[in-house]
């Protein structure tokens, strides 16, 4: 059962990887879906403020890992099933810089 789940998630991941590939789609994902907990403007909700000033202690690599693997013991879920490492890195860059180049 778990293996079936893993496989279906894998397919999901691929499908969403395509959807998220454009910068606009990634920015939309951040505000709409990360925004479920962190707020549409990212200033925090049940989850903390994730605007650039609040994340300044992170570098891109560490923040990408947080996005991909979540934070154990908190409500931050792993996004690895839904996106590629390259996309997580782009999201981390966007969060740290407040824009996507």
């Amino acid at each position, binding site marked *: 059962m778990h293996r079936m789940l893993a496989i279906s998630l894998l397919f999901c991941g691929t499908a*969403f990887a395509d959807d998220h590939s454009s910068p606009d789609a990634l920015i939309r994902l951040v505000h*709409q879906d990360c925004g479920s907990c962190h707020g549409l*403007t990212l*200033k925090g*909700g049940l989850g903390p403020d994730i605007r650039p000033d609040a994340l300044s202690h992170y570098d891109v690599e560490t923040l990408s890992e947080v996005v991909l693997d979540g934070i154990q013991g908190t*409500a931050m879920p792993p*996004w690895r*099933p839904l996106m590629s490492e390259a996309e997580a890195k782009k999201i981390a860059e966007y969060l740290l810089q407040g824009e996507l180049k």
Partner: protein
Amino acid sequence: MKWLATALVALAMTGSVHAQTILATGDLGLVVERASGSLLLVDQSERKMLTRITGLGDLSHASLVYSPDQRYAYVFGRDGGLTKVDIVERKIANRVVQSGNAIGGAISDDGSLVAVSNYEPGGVRIFNADTLDLVADIPTGSKTIGLVDAPGKRFVFTLWDDGETWIADLSAGAPKITKVKGVGTNPYDALVTDDGRLYITGLFGEDGLTAIDLWDENPEPIRVLPEYGRGQQEMPVYKMPHLEGWARAGREFVLPAVGHHQVLWINADDLTETGRTETYGQPVFAMSRPDGRQVWVNFAHPLNDTIQVIDTPSKEIIHEFKPGPAVLHMEFTPRGHEVWVSVRDAGKVMIYDTHTFEKLAEIDAESPSGIFFTSRAHKTGL
């Protein structure tokens, strides 16, 4: 014919407001447009949008309650804005920014007080419903969730960080606070039953829910389904479920599980589990049609394009469909013959017949989220 002419003259003399069509508000509603800070005033019977009201600030995750006369809506914005909207005059009547980061509110049973729940700074603030003047400030030192009204001019809310539920009694003027400790780890939302008796809190940090009997002089936390996820793989939760749309179907409650793709059935009398229904994804809302015969469920990202309908006698899924991308909310007409569904990324509110499941109409809306019919004015907890 002569009397008509006389009536028209009389109308002309009484002024413009009365010369216009009389607007009854009992079948109206408001749809939150979350990204543009606006509301759509809608007519449930006509299945139409009447007007757009703008200038309400950040409405992501916004909710609202109605005055007992169904004329005013109190809108709780994420930016801490509390806006009083006059749906008869179709305009903002008053607006205050009461905190930096708010997460919903409630109106007292007598309609005189409006309470707002805040993340930053954590706590609840209570306002005069007429003037929006601050009446009481209840700091909690924690993010507050699950704020509801309860009979006896009381408000009940829960502390996400500390796992406590506070009951604020405003019947004597200054708030008298009763604290119930040990509610559980990271309570994420709560509901009150329509009789105002049971306050049920969902927990994110551990399995299960916690009930509090508000009829009890010294309420104690009652653990409900404390091990419902034991031995099962937890799934990531990409959106917290909402309990506001809790469902009571006959003798049972139906509530979303957390970290499991299930809804849970609980006996309303003794709070024991009576069943589970496997669902398509992480449920966000599990909402009962007002007669309790069906429960409609929507899901968290990335499975949020789908709705499943559960038949309550059999607990089986009898209908599944995909209204479109990002189904955020559902609202039933008061007697349940139709349901309105907000489909954020389609930019539509879609209206369905709940007996045939046929789509009856669509209304254009900008990133619609919550739908609130004025019939909520007369329900405890809404």
